[in-house]
């Protein structure tokens, strides 16, 4: 149980900067997800925490102890790799026992702890099996078990579920969370899958192009994205983002959305925020889930270009010229492609971003 602090962390590989000045505090016992598309620097950050890579600049502190120069074997971290890295020349039992044996624990204790973790991960019937021919689902369980058995204070997981099948992934999401609750480790979880991050993490650190974009609880990140990248990345589909400019109307401040016409009047809170910021050119954002079909003339009339019925919900693609919008309705929504529907956007869900900087405009 250790807090992790990253201070001005920079990592360069030759001329390429993989990570640009990152500051992040991971609290003791927290489940932190590093979320971002591939190549965003999340794995590099993780490797530096583990000690597999050394930072080009900055410091990594575990409970105020500088980890610079501390070998990875002495950091007390557990690491689960995306490709499991199981020792195939050993059986399941020996793989699980590996960390304990390296630490020279008495064989009787090794045995009892292997049994306990095998029970927890439902590996008991497989203990005597060679590990070379196990299925990926079992391999991933084994990899988690091998790292968890030594009860590391910090548990690092690098996309552990990206290779397993969808049904098993859902099971493991619950189990990993359960595991973390039981052992109360500080957990850092690298993923490109926002569903994993949203369901498991206490807080999410969203990254892109080596830059930390936002840190917050899953709901904060979803409801109040700090910038355009986070807005578009979080949520599936992501937030609708429409370029526009502010305009006064007789009903209050609105956003002129070009071919799509004018938006509904902005909420008073947003109006004061946008007036304070001084921005004129803005990006008008709203969640596809916050759109409803409106029968009145109040709504925005838009042509339907495509309808995706994905079981529980219906994703409707709407468009007018450059401006394209997605909306999520119930599965039985009576919308046909080719028709025109009138939509209403929930006023409280509207977010504005500065068109130049991409940063969210928020009240203070």
């Amino acid at each position: 149980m250790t807090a992790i602090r990253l201070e001005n962390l920079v990592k360069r590989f030759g001329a390429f900067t993989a990570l640009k000045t990152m500051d992040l505090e991971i609290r003791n016992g927290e489940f932190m997800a590093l979320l971002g598309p591939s190549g965003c620097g999340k794995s590099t950050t993780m490797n530096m925490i583990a000690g597999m890579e050394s930072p080009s600049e900055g410091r990594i502190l575990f409970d105020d102890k500088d980890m610079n120069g501390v070998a990875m074997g002495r950091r007390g971290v557990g690491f689960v790799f995306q490709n499991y890295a199981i020792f195939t020349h050993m059986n399941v039992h020996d793989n699980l026992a590996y960390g304990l044996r390296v630490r020279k624990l008495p064989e009787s204790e090794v045995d009892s702890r292997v049994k306990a973790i095998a029970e927890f991960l439902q590996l008991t019937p497989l203990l005597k099996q060679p590990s070379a021919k196990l299925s990926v689902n079992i391999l991933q369980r084994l990899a988690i078990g091998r790292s968890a058995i030594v009860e590391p204070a910090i548990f690092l997981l690098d996309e552990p579920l990206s290779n397993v099948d969808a049904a098993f992934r859902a099971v493991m999401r619950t189990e990993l969370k359960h595991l973390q609750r039981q052992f109360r480790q500080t957990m850092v979880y690298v993923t490109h899958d926002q569903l994993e991050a949203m369901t498991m993490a206490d807080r999410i650190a969203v990254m892109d192009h080596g830059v930390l974009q936002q840190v917050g609880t899953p709901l904060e990140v979803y409801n109040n994205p700090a910038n355009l990248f986070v807005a578009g990345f979080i949520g599936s589909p992501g937030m609708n983002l429409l370029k526009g400019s502010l305009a006064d109307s007789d009903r209050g401040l609105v956003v002129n959305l070009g071919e799509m016409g004018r938006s509904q009047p902005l909420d008073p809170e947003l109006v004061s925020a946008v007036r304070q910021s001084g921005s004129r050119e803005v990006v008008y954002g709203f969640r596809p889930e916050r759109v409803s079909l409106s029968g009145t003339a109040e709504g925005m009339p838009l042509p339907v270009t495509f309808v995706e019925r994905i079981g529980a919900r219906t994703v409707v693609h709407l468009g007018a010229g450059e401006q394209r919008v997605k909306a999520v309705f119930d599965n039985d929504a009576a919308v046909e492609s080719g028709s025109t529907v009138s939509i209403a956007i929930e006023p409280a869900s509207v977010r504005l971003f500065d068109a130049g900087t991409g940063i969210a405009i928020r009240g203070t």
Partner: protein
Amino acid sequence: MNRSLPFEIFRYSVITLALAITLIPTLWMASMAFKPIAEWSAAGADLTWWPKNPTLDNFRFIFGTSTSDLIVALDRTAGKPILSSLLSAVFGTLIAMGCGTAAAYGLSRFGSGQNLPLALIQLRLFPPMAVMIPVMIMWAFLGMVDSWWGLALIYGIVTLPFAFWLMKTFFDDMPREIEDAALVEGCSRGRVFLKITLPMMRPALASSALFVFILNWSDYLIALLLTTREWVTIPVYMASLSSSMTGQLYGAKAALGLIAAVPPVIMGIAIQRHLVRGLTFGALKQ
């Protein structure tokens, strides 16, 4: 599988031809090893596939227990050359594999020099003769001519590049995560190499060792230059199996050849399952 008949005929013709090229001489040798002199020498006009009067005379002859119907007596038996071949090839393989594996691991994991691996094959870039004359002089200077250890050392040196390059590709293919997984548990580098990397590399080690062993085992030129009497190897000894009266002693050569084929075949069978390259490194999914 709906191949046309002409294609099938063509396919099997090619397979048959390929098999014939390798198998006929081998079978002929095996058959000849058991033929008495009258059947393998030109004197016995009709050559047959099966020995008409199978005999072990050829084997007795090369081990010096019988002079067969040949009036010649050998000045030495096949025992010592077989021992010489075994010692030099085995130790040569150990040297090449030991140094080659260590060098390959080091360069694969920590190597920075681009030219160093290439420098290792320079001994192979020249015609063997050009390299072997200086080696002969050096070995003479060091007093290692006509000794199995001198031969083992040069075998180790000339096959080192093969051992190195083979092992390097295997090490390059092995994912580093597996070693990192052991390192993060607090295992030392040396222990990771001995307890994790090498055991997982067993198939690679076996197939590389077989390859290197066969190279050493079948060498003629180096042994011809570096041995004179005491420690001649099987190929050199085989070349000497002739007499002024009968010319080439084909029966004796065939018997010796059959014996020489045994060690590689045994090794090959022993590691056959590894040769199919069933390498499932760390159960990785790429």
